[in-house]
């Protein structure tokens, strides 16, 4: 093989080597360019899930609060009803005792 032929082969190899490195650099540049979007998308997804969980928690609390409030109201209605149905004998006893206290 002649010297120019050898030189040509080496230059070609150098060119190929440069091309390989440039391709790697291009890939890296692309990777870095896409990074902010990737981060934003990931962040958005995590925060969206958190917001969904927040809404769920608030709705659950609202529901639990409403249920408990309803239970309390029901219980109170029963107690109030019991008050309205105070036995006549007790009312009479209270009235007599009050009369005695007043006139004593």
């Amino acid at each position, binding site marked *: *093989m002649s010297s120019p032929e*050898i030189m040509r*082969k*080496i230059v*070609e*190899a*150098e060119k*190929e*080597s*440069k091309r*390989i*490195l440039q391709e*790697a*650099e291009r*890939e*890296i540049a692309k*990777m*870095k360019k896409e*990074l902010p979007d*990737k*981060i934003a998308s*990931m*962040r958005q997804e*995590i*925060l969206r*899930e*958190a*917001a969904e*969980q*927040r809404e769920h*928690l*608030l709705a*659950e*609390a*609202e529901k*639990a*609060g409403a249920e*408990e*409030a*309803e239970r*309390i*109201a029901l*219980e*109170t209605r029963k*107690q*109030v009803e019991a*008050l*309205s149905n*105070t036995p006549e004998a*007790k*009312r009479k*006893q*209270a*009235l007599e*005792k*009050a*009369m005695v*206290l*007043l*006139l004593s």
Partner: protein
Amino acid sequence: MSSSLEKLVEDIIRESKTKAEELRKQALGQVQEALAKERADALREADLIIRSAKSEADAERNRRISQAKQQARLLYLAEKNKVVRDVLKDLRSGLVQFARDDSAYGPFLLKSIAQGLVAVPSETVKIALSERDAKKFKSSRMLEEALAAAQTPRKAVLSDKPIAGTGGAIVTSEDGKIRADCTLEARVQLMEPQLLAEISRILFAS
């Protein structure tokens, strides 16, 4: 010679491939590191959002329950108050009956006048009664008996101005400056807290 050249060419290519792979690996590492850091930051932020939502949810639930409890308490107390006040209303009606029963009311009126006499430190006092009582007791010795009960040698005259109300008396000093209201209504008003407490005790004692 030819095989040495081929080896040289292969070395050049391999070296660049190795270098390219190293660069890729390094860049990928940096990207992954940045992603992991951002992910951790976002997760921290999300955790804060969720923790804050939990507190908010607890506060909302507690607020709702506390509001319901307060409403319930007010409703219950209002009903309790109504029941007690109804008995007090019956008591007032009962006093009308009491004032018509001379055997029970007479001594009470006497006692009321005597209390009024003690309360008004005046030589001469005026005693005002309801029209009905004045008519009924005018001819009796009630005033003398009251003065004796009060153990006072003062002079008492029956007022010609009758009082309105169920019964009892109003004793006034001669100059009208001192006045003792010993009517049944005044007694009820004065003793209302005690009466309500006693009625409640009997009605709601557990």
